[in-house]
């Protein structure tokens, strides 16, 4: 296996960012180390980024939420002169495999969504303070912030130069946020996305590309003043004390297996399959929020989210040949429900809220994972409340029906909780159950009547909560045949089919980014006009222009 990409980091290891905490305001500086690229062959000049830079950003955003709940406003700015951020590193993109590019874009998109939602989810508002050039992925970083201030020095501009410069799209949400979030008129957006140099000064405000411009000489003052004003206006309670996100416990086996404290990833390479087993809580739920707070990152429900998140990212980036991910759970469903209930009952508490929001993101990450996903509901499993969401995140689910010979584990059951009805919405802003029963709200209403009651296989199948329930006679064969069949299909067709079937219902900005924008971008990333030897992306930096096949497809 080539070098493993590690999604775990911590502030002592940052090379590209630094944060200065100043009470309710955090100043976040992007100061990319040119020599700190994740792979050899490129230098991260002009605050350009690669996956490594984004992994740090994701860590910062996450720690901001858990470790620094006192922060109400985050000011994202450049630690360099004359450049805010030049976007994704082009030489890195030029040299990267298609699969890496796609996964890189997906992760960066997820990170942008996360800090964009921080205001609504946690009362942490992100301001982009843009000084110097802010192009491509740089402007996409700013676009995902909640407020953009641009210096008016008659040079600094915001730009999406991908199309004219590289023959690709501003694919980290750029095209979508310009119209859907910032509501830039479509013809002006068309102009904006066609000029390399972008738009500066008052016009950037007039076109709604930024929220305000500030005089250059007073820029820092204006930004800090704005930050303090936003902080003062924030509805978020003051004086919250965070918890420390301690390193997760994780070890890698020779065979590619990964063992966490609550998650195990087993690998069957011949079958192209990874099995993720999630362990339920060994202990009762903390008595109250104080108890939870003192458990901190060791609390079962938070520890599990972090481990599961890491496992998914690891499989996505480092185990690309494992096309099939099987979820299993083992544990006491009653305890799972109790752990979740503490959070649901205290959702006004900052930490309870953060953990629930985090679970929302982890589950979305699973929704968004381009592998065939299947859940096995075996005896002894604990698909209850938040863990039951896994069943509706996956493409198919199989449940054990009645007793199995020689298996003395408790009978397989599924238990719904109030959390299954809106606490963990998908990217389409619907709960997984609403999406599953799209157009049939009655079915969802009926399910509410079953909250808290263990549903065994017959009921679960009847209610549409699992795909199939099999008894001892059929189980082994049916599951095996399904897994073998699934592993034999074209991975491209599977990715396409699954992505289409998973997100029923209305479009949101998020689904448009992950669906429409990403699909077009990934198409372009395959086309010779961009990535062929004469394509613009390959030729970038050589001085030669891309040679295009002018046929419209």
């Amino acid at each position, binding site marked *: 296996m080539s070098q493993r990409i590690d999604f775990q980091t911590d502030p002592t290891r940052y090379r590209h960012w630094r944060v200065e905490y100043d009470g309710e305001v955090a100043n976040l500086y992007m100061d990319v180390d040119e020599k700190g690229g994740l792979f050899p062959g490129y230098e991260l000049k002009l605050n350009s980024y690669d996956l490594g830079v984004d992994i740090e950003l994701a860590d910062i955003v996450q720690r901001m939420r858990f470790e620094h709940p006192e922060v109400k406003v985050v000011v994202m700015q450049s630690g360099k002169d004359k450049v805010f951020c030049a976007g994704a590193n082009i030489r890195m993109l030029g040299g990267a495999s298609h699969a890496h590019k796609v996964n890189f874009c997906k992760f960066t998109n997820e990170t942008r969504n996360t800090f964009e939602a921080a205001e609504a989810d946690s009362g942490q508002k992100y301001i982009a303070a843009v000084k110097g050039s802010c192009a491509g992925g740089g402007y996409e970083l700013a676009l995902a912030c909640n407020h953009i201030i641009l210096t008016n020095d*008659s040079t600094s501009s915001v730009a999406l130069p991908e199309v004219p410069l590289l023959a690709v799209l501003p694919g980290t949400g750029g095209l979508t946020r310009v119209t859907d979030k910032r509501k830039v008129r479509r013809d002006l957006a068309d102009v904006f996305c066609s000029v390399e140099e972008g738009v500066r000064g008052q016009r950037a405000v007039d076109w709604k590309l930024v929220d305000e411009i500030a005089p250059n000489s007073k820029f820092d003052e204006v930004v800090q003043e704005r930050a303090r004003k936003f902080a003062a206006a924030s509805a978020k309670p003051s004086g919250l004390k965070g918890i420390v996100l301690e390193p997760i416990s994780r070890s890698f086996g020779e065979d590619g297996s990964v063992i966490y404290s609550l998650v195990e990833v087993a690998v069957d390479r011949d079958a192209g399959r990874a099995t993720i087993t999630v362990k339920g809580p060994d202990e009762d739920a903390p008595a109250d929020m104080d108890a939870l707070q003192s458990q901190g990152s060791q609390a079962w429900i938070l520890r599990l989210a972090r481990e599961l998140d890491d496992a998914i990212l690891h499989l996505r980036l480092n185990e690309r040949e494992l096309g099939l991910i099987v979820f299993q759970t083992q544990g006491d469903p009653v305890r799972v429900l109790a752990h979740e209930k503490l959070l649901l009952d205290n959702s006004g508490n900052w930490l309870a809220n953060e953990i629930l929001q985090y679970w929302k993101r982890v589950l979305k990450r699973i929704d968004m994972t381009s592998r065939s996903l299947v859940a096995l509901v075996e005896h002894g499993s604990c698909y209850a409340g938040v863990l039951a969401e896994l069943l509706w995140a996956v493409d198919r689910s199989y449940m054990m029906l009645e007793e199995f010979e020689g298996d003395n584990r408790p009978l397989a059951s599924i238990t719904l909780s109030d959390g299954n009805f809106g606490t963990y919405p998908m990217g389409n802003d619907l709960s997984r159950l609403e999406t599953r029963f799209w157009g049939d709200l009655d079915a969802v209403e009926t399910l509410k009547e079953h909250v808290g009651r263990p549903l065994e296989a017959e009921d679960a199948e009847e209610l549409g909560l699992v795909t199939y329930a099999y008894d001892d006679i059929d189980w082994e064969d049916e599951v095996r045949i399904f897994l073998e069949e699934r592993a034999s299909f074209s991975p491209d067709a599977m990715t396409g089919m699954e992505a289409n079937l998973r997100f029923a219902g209305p479009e949101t900005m998020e689904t448009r980014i992950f669906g429409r924008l990403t699909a077009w971008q990934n198409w372009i990333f395959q086309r010779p006009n961009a990535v062929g030897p004469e394509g613009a992306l390959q030729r970038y930096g050589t001085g*030669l222009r891309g040679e295009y096949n002018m046929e419209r497809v």
Partner: protein
Amino acid sequence: MLDLINVSYDTQIPNNVGLSQDKKVLKALEKWHPGYIDWWNKLIPQNFQESLVYLRTAVSVDPKGWAKFDYVKMPEYRWGVLLAPQVEERVIPCGEHAGQPAWQEVPGEYRNLLKRLIVIQGDTEPASVEQQRLLALTAPSLYDMRNLFQVNVEEGRHLWAMVYLLHKYFGRDGREEADDLLRRQSGSEEAPRMLGAFNEETPDWLSFFMFTYFTDRDGKMQLESLAQSGFDPLSRTCRFMLTEEAHHMFVGETGVGRIVQKTCEVMKENGIEDPFDVGKIRDLGVIDLPTVQKKLNLHYTLSLDLFGQEVSTNAANAFNAGIKGRYMENRLTDDHRLQQDTYTVWDLEDGKAVQKEVPALTAINMRLRDDYTKDAAGGVGRWNKIIEKFGIDFELKLPHEAFNRKIGVFADKLFDPDGKVVSGADYDKGLPEWLPTHADGDFIQSLMKPCYEPGQYARWIAPPKVGIDNKPGDFEYVKLHMA
């Protein structure tokens, strides 16, 4: 018939581009004009604005006899739009379109690239006037003051030249860019000039001479490469600007030369053999040669930074597009496309400066910089001839390109002027010998006393060998208005 050689004065803006028949552009330029005059008036101290300065004004673009000399108040100077004559059947000299007819209109696909080049060039022109705005207050002679003003008004005209192109060929965007060229100000916090070196004040006359010698020479090289543009109007504009630019470098070279000359004279008169006997030399009111060397180090390295990164995509794009050529492109004998060629550039490997082959297209900046260094070496040699003549054991040198850099692979790395890697301690120790210190600045500043009598010169600078326009030694180059 349109006279494209002689300058027509039938509009407010002298020109040889038939402006009176180009109503749209004329109107746009006339709208821009008051802002320009306003800029000029606020810039240079009032009494100089009202003084009569013996200036040359372009009356033709014919290389023989293109200018006439006369007294003029600077705000009334006839800044105009002048293009070198069109070359019949000129072709694009380089890049993927090499050999095709030169563009007379902006090619759509290169509009932004072209505009950016013109804006960057245009931004430097007024910047240097801003940097030099207070120098007349300490002019060492009326002759030097006149030269300063000549350089200033011509830089102003260069701004006009770029603004004309923006107005004529780049529509509304171009007009906005032209306005912003007046909005940005050297050293301004609000809207600084685009390139770092153009935001530093020119604090004294030695700096001014060094600036005109080294930094204007960067300007010259940029103009030389733009003169090779496949976009013909830009090429013609730059070709004419080069005629004027030559004078700016003359001012720099002779200025430094006269300082060196004076120092040597005074040393000889006073029996000082050791050029490093700085205290004694300074006591005599002239600038010691080691200080001249330090100033040279500073200005040369700042100018190298203006050429940008060693390996540059922008430069490669501009060359391949045919909108910016190499120095003397038409005299080079390769295929003018460079798609397969390589060029040697400096790089940093294991902390050491090494030379490396890179694709020639991406090294266009470096090639131009190497040509610059060759060009800049000439004057240094002539300064050394002066020192030699006095038998003083001292040689001025261009420092290694790794020294004191802020841009490129050597940026902020510790090299001495010979290009040797040095430790932090050695660098700190060497620095006062390599670059001007604040104390050096104090000393030079102490010499900066105006000398406004015709034919008189400050004691630290020798008179020129010949006057401007062959005027006699005591000619009153500036009739000062003393309010």
